[in-house]
């Protein structure tokens, strides 16, 4: 347990100390969210209608585009081989790296979602459902991104291919994430159905990802 905890801390501090840290992730969200009103027009009703979807898509893109970072640096300086052969199960190591990536990329978005919600005229009462659903959904998204990163670990500039590879797998989370948020915000009948399915998808992804990624890293070694 102790080495895993140390790895968790190491990964997070490496992320925040290199290249702008949390500001990088938050900057990305701000840019995309600010671009949307210019693209679709400043009408507040329209923005309120698309806000939940836009914030979900931004979260998804941020995780997708940063996926490469999960293993790339560690592969380059050789620590990945050490991490996978020394002590803890490779699956556990991958799970920890996945969670560290989630803390670095998804958590900052959850923190500034209130501000972004204001900018996009998020419907009243939509904030807590949104943060809750994103919290659950982003874990699954990070898990799937880890699979993509492990498959393409030895390829340079793999980002476009990761997108192609992982995009189809993201669609269920996006569909149920948005519908869970909408159902909870507007208190439709049976507001928890979509949330439960979203949780199920995230849990399945979290279970599959470490094993698939371990196999992929082994095949790539």
């Amino acid at each position, binding site marked *: 347990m102790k080495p895993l905890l140390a790895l968790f801390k190491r990964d997070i501090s490496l992320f925040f100390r290199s290249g702008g840290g949390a500001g990088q992730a938050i900057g990305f969200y701000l840019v995309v969210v600010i671009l949307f009103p210019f693209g679709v027009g400043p009408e507040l009703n329209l923005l309120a209608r698309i806000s939940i979807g836009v914030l979900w898509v931004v979260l998804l893109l941020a995780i997708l585009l940063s996926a490469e970072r999960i293993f790339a640096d560690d592969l380059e300086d050789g620590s990945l081989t050490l991490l996978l052969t020394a002590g803890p199960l490779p699956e556990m190591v991958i799970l920890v790296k996945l969670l560290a990536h989630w803390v670095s990329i998804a958590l900052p978005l959850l923190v500034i979602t209130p501000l972004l919600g204001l900018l996009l005229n998020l419907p009243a009462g939509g904030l807590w459902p949104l943060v809750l659903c994103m919290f659950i959904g982003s874990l699954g998204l990070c898990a799937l991104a880890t*699979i993509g990163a492990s*498959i393409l670990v030895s390829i340079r500039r793999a980002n476009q291919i990761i997108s192609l590879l992982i995009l*189809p*797998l993201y*669609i*269920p989370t996006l569909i149920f994430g948005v519908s869970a948020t909408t159902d909870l915000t507007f208190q439709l009948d049976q507001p928890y159905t979509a949330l439960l399915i979203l949780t199920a998808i995230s849990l399945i992804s979290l279970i599959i990802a470490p094993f*698939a990624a371990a*196999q*992929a890293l082994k*095949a790539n070694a």
Partner: protein
Amino acid sequence: MFGLANPTKFMRFSGILLPYLIITTLGLFGWGLYMVFTAPEDYLQGPLSRILYVHAPSAYLAQAAYVFMALANFTGYIWRHPLADMAAKNAAPIGATFALLTIITGMLWGKPAWGTWWVWDARLTSVFILFIMYLGYIAIWQVIEDQVKAARVATIVAAVGLINIPIIKFSVEWWNTLHQPASLTTSGSAIHPSMLTALLIMFAAFTFLFTSLLFISIRTEINRRRARAMEMRILQQNIAQTNLSTRAAINNQEPD
């Protein structure tokens, strides 16, 4: 089946089988198309309904090819069966083509029947996603140069895709549904027998077409690998000879 793991045996076996496969495919297509054009038209859609005979078999093959591809990958992964890997690799572009054909025929049908080329309906969307999954899978084979490594990685891609296909299908259906439900089920058929016969022949013709294309494509790959191996051998011999003659020339020049 495992005897065929040997490429030489496979080449001999498939060389004998291939002409028969092609003849069967052509025969089935001839018979099927004849049936298609003599089958009654839909009273609402008229001749338009004949797109069905290309659209439905392509849709079936686009999905079946993915399952075949994944199974071939598993066979290659578990038993280290190099021909199974090659079968998986070569099934992907064929499957992708059928997925694209499904989308194109669907669009051609959708414009007059629904009044629009494209709607984000559940089935259209899931075939589109299937097409993207094929592209991702093909990309893996393209970017990883070592074919043995690529096969192992591709298996993981196919496996993760196979687990996700039902989830994606279910979620897309939850999301939006406009397409008619499946007409052919195990409990019976909603299609009139006169049209059903033609449709079933077309299904068989497409299946044989897939098998023939796969065989041709695997044979081409084996030949390409052999040609490359020969080129490498010739190249190495040339280099060895050049080295020898250079060394001889240097030795001759040396004053003693």
